[in-house]
């Protein structure tokens, strides 16, 4: 189950190594396994896209890396979970706090609710920088202004005194990005950073994240349910379904030769400009399994899969190399040509 070494990055050591991550939740009406044996590496400076429907475990995976899952009810297990050589599973709370916001930072989905409504932007920006970089006074304010300027906010001095409700959604997300990058982290985790925003602003924010992380040499993870959003901004893509990785490939390859029927379905459900007008947009029929109630024996996607056979229902496929750098978890990977 070890992922094959990435050919083009063989020399570089991964900054984040996750191997066999399992996240369980014990709830009142039963146990739920939200993340099932997920393994991946993240290399310095690269951009990884993580795609899947809501509830597929993509957010939980990265919240677990930050150890932001409340335990209990959650429980995080992994064979290995290391950040630049440091074991994240065994790290003390104090060690984790030194990593959070400093070495690994996070941008969340809804900028409306992710900022504290009763504290000014300045206050919320300063506290992280103060904590991790030890700046204070004038240099602290200068740093905040510089960051706000960098994310394209005009009149940054004024904005420091604003409360979140006085800003628009797009500006708030820029503030969140500025806050996340304030301590020059090695990794930026962006959890659906554009879902709650207007369509016109989504693209700006995605490009801002791409450009800034590229400039700073920060590795980034872009978590989204929209395959279109990661097309132009990521190096590699990991597709998740029902708590597992179903396909992992470099971005161009994934778009050119998707092998998992689920990936193919996702690709076909992206609206395209070059499609003839009036053609109905494809949507994958059915709904993802309820991880709380259903026990999944075979492939979790089988009930919705057009190619499903007996084997698919009986036995779960594992994530196997299909081509160099291209991993697929599907019995039918070889004959799953894109159709339609």
């Amino acid at each position, binding site marked *: 189950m070890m992922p094959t070494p990435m050919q083009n990055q063989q020399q570089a050591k991964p900054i984040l190594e996750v191997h066999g991550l399992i996240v369980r939740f014990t709830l009142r009406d039963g146990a739920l396994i939200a993340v099932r044996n997920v393994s991946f590496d993240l290399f310095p400076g690269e951009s990884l896209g993580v795609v899947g429907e809501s509830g597929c475990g993509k957010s939980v995976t990265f919240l677990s890396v930050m150890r932001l899952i409340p335990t209990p009810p959650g429980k995080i297990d992994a064979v290995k979970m290391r950040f630049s050589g440091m074991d994240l599973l065994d790290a003390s709370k104090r060690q984790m706090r030194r990593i959070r916001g400093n070495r690994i930072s996070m941008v*969340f989905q809804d900028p409306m*609710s992710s900022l*504290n409504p009763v504290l000014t932007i300045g206050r919320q920006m300063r506290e992280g920088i103060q*904590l991790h970089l030890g700046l204070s006074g004038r240099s602290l304010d200068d740093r905040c202004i510089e960051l706000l300027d960098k994310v394209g906010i005009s009149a940054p001095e004024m904005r420091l005194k604003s409360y979140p409700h006085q800003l628009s959604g797009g500006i708030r997300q820029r503030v969140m990005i500025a*806050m996340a990058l304030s301590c020059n982290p090695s990794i930026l985790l962006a959890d659906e950073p554009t879902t709650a925003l207007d369509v016109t602003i989504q693209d700006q924010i995605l490009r801002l994240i791409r450009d800034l992380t590229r400039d700073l040499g920060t590795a980034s993870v872009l978590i989204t349910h929209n395959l279109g959003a990661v097309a132009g901004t990521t190096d590699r893509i990991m597709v998740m379904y029902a708590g597992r990785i179903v396909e992992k490939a470099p971005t161009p390859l994934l778009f050119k030769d998707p092998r998992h029927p689920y990936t193919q379905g996702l690709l076909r459900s992206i609206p395209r400009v070059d499609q003839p007008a009036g053609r109905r947009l494809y949507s994958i029929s059915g709904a993802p399994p309820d991880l709380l109630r259903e026990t999944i024996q075979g492939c979790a996607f089988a009930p919705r899969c057009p190619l499903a056979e007996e084997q698919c229902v009986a036995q779960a496929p594992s994530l196997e190399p299909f081509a160099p750098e291209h991993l697929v978890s599907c019995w039918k990977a070889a004959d799953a040509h894109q159709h339609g």
Partner: protein
Amino acid sequence: MKRYITRRLLLLLPTLLLVSFLVFCIVRIIPGDAVTLMVAEMGFADDEAELRAVLGLDQSLPRQYWNYMRNALRGDLGTSLWSGQPVLEEITRRLPLTFRLALMALFWTLLTGIPLGVLSALKQDTWLDYLLRSVSVGGLSIPSFWLATLLVVFGAIWFRWVPPIDFIPFGEDPLASLGQLVVPSLVLSVALSASIMRMTRTMMLEVMREDYIRTARAKGLSEWVVVIRHALANSLIPVLSIMGIQMAFLVGGTVIMESIFVLPGMGKYLLDAITWRDYPVIQGINLFICTLIICINLVIDLLYGVLDPRIRY
């Protein structure tokens, strides 16, 4: 801000007007036999007609209301039938004691209610949470007068402690005077503290689930900073509004405590006035206390605006 205050003040006027009207009505519906009793039992006048004249009940209702409002606006709440003193003077003489008692109870309430509520929320579903929650429901269910009576009876039986009968005026010995209020204010604070604790717990639990708490944690802030700086302020805003409602409750409670611990405050005065059938005093105290509570609620509303930047003026 100025506009907000002006608007709130303007909204206050109809409420005050209504309150004064209600107080006026309540006292006017005294059945005829009450006046008879006032004459027969208390000897406030030689006959009913005279007493009616003294009370101004012989005039037409609109006339009565006009006099009542005009006098009230001048700060004249009438004259006590019992003592012959102006009611306002009698009230203001007793007010500081009641005020100190209520303030001390409020102090204990906040001192215990908020930290315990936070603790209960942070330890949700542990034995400590269950214990604190049971204690708070217990605190809400135990009548304050029973608790006070228990303290007095068992204090005397076990520790030979008897609440002092002679009240020490604040001017004579401030510390000893405040010391006399410790037990009554503690008893008074039990139910208030329990409800503040429940409210704080509920709000803390709600706030701790908010996205911005996750953001704060993702910054690497310590749990302590997350709770104090990011969660507490947001949780306490709704708790503040509960405090407004509790003011009325608190004033009611002082009546009982002053009665049990024989403290010459406003509550005791009201009870005495009821015993003496001193209606001008009853009317005056009602009007005075309601106005006071309306003003306190206004201050709380304004504080609300200061604490929550989302409220627009």
